């Protein structure tokens, strides 16, 4: 039901939990070893974005810009104009949140080869509250021409996304999260920009067929829900849509054709996010019912990550209830 390359222990209660930003830190250092054009910039959040791993390894290729995310975006654009491959990292709320126009004009419009890392996205940031919970970043990045948007689900995928971004020519946004989250993939799991992967195939004996499309740190909840639903008589498949842009339209179309309806699960506003991207495409090519789980036009708040994920309706229980309703 699940492919061999993903973590065989994904349904265990004591599954290993690691923040996916760790994968960024490791991947950036590796990218730096492979290509000396790779440089890193930080806006006073070097440790928590894990940029410190690169900064320690390559102090001469690290630029500390202080708390100035707008300038950081443009400084990176200038460095790219001189042939560097800059990675800029901060919290997603500030970069690209505060620096959107600089990202759009000085990076994307210039076609500067800059990689933007938005850490601490989503309500799972937890106690810091709504000011620090970016739940709009996918929307504001995927609307920018030329921008590639990646949302890795765990530490291994974040590492691979970082390495892929370094090799990709052009601007890339990578969305990361703060909390330790279940390790869904393995170092051997395939990852390619623009390629969706089906992580769970539905039990073909069931008459009702629902597909779940998810990404990022809530993907594990979708897989947990999928397992229980298949056991309860609803055929459920789960797709890991790690690249939001460019959308793997071929895979999404095939996925829609194999199911009666789709449910999307994202730690983001449903407006403009993953569900919107899927719906925009399917409404033109293969009209399909797409029910969207995520934040519905609200701000986040303080709390434990798990209780916030549940409150805003991205937890396993809500996904199960929603799929049952959709299946009828």
């Amino acid at each position, binding site marked *: 039901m699940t492919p061999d390359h993903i973590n065989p222990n994904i349904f265990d209660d004591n599954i290993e939990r690691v923040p996916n930003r760790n994968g960024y830190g490791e991947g950036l250092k590796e990218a730096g070893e492979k290509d000396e054009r790779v440089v890193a910039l930080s806006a006073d959040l070097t440790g928590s974005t894990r940029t410190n791993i690169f900064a320690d390894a390559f102090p001469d290729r690290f630029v500390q810009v202080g708390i100035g995310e*707008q*300038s950081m*975006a443009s400084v990176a654009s*200038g*460095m790219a104009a001189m042939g560097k491959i800059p990675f800029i990292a901060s919290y997603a709320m500030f970069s690209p949140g505060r620096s959107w126009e600089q990202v759009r004009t*000085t990076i994307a419009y*210039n076609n500067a080869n800059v990689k933007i890392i938005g850490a601490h996205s989503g309500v799972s940031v937890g106690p810091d509250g709504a000011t620090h919970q970016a739940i709009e970043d996918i929307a504001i990045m995927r609307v920018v021409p030329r921008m590639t948007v990646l949302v890795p689900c765990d530490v291994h995928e974040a590492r691979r996304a970082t390495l892929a971004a370094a090799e990709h020519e052009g601007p890339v946004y990578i969305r990361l999260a703060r909390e330790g989250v279940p390790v869904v993939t393995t170092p051997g799991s395939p990852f390619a920009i623009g390629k969706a992967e089906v992580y769970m195939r539905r039990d073909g004996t069931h008459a009702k067929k629902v597909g779940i499309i998810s990404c990022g740190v809530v993907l594990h909840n979708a897989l947990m829900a999928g397992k229980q639903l298949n056991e309860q008589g609803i055929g459920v498949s789960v797709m890991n849509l790690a690249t939001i842009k460019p959308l793997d339209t071929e895979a999404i179309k095939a996925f829609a054709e194999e199911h009666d309806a789709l449910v999307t699960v994202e730690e983001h506003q449903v407006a403009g996010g993953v569900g919107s991207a899927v719906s925009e495409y399917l409404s033109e090519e293969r009209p399909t019912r797409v029910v969207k789980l995520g934040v519905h036009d609200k701000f986040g708040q303080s709390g434990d990550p798990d209780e916030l994920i549940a409150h805003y309706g991205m937890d396993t229980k809500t996904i199960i209830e929603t799929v049952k309703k959709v299946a009828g």
Partner: protein
Amino acid sequence: MTHLMKTGPVDRSCVFNIIILILASHTIYLRHMHYLTDAEVHELEAKANEIRQSIIEMLFEAKSGHTAGPLGMADIFTLLYFEVLKHDPKNPFWEERDRLILSNGHICPVLYATMAHAGYFPEEELLTLRKFGTRLQGHPHREVLPGIETSSGPLGSGLSQAVGMAIAERMENPYSSRYFYCLTGDGEINAGQMWEAFMHAGKEKLHNLIVIVDRNGIQIDGYTKDVMPLEPLAEKLAAFNWDVQEVDGHNIRSVNDAIGKAQAVYSQPSVIIAHTIPSKGVDVFERDFRWHGNPPGKGPEERVPKGEQADEALRRLRTLGGQIKPGA
């Protein structure tokens, strides 16, 4: 060199580097510094007058665009492109070229006119300014016109890009004699990102960065002293660890000398505050902030009726010839 740029214990190699750098800087100073003869100054003034005429013609044809800034900066652009810059109009992507980053993109008519006169593209193309399909976009776009180093327009981000270029250059080649010239307007200095970048460049001691501020005292809504007072600007920039000079922006010899001195500064970024007269060269337009964002034909008409503004401006430019003098 990179060690030199950071604070820390001074070791012997650091002292050696400082000595080498001082010697290198003075070599650069002597090599680049060219005192202009009277004949050369007159030649540049005549060229600036031709460029002003082109500015009037292209703006009139475009029926939109900015007049005051481009006319006011014609002397400085002429000096840069015909005397100072290491560049090759026939090979705009020449690796060794200096970089000119226009931060206040709205004054691009003077950039385009100067580039055309310098041989980057045919002068006839100037009349396509702002028209559909043109390479001369309303605000400069790097990708369509070779020789443009960055797309700009949204104010405040060009300096950060120049900072990024200068840092990247230093990483690559600490002893390079390449300069990064960033041109900005005084109104633009309202933008917070400018101060992020001023602070950053001061921290990094970017000796290869030279900023020229068009201190013309106007912005769209009025006089800069009313919209957002900047003074004491020189003191503010000095406090940010910049080498600061103030010059008459229409005295070509003074500006040339100031650039030569700025090139010789080896431990700080340099800024030249160039006092200019908005709409310089067309006395009936001069000093009136309403000419900031209007082309001839759409400007204030107390002194010249709209229908005669372009012809009147050209007539004055053609007959004023001898009036544009050093120190005027």
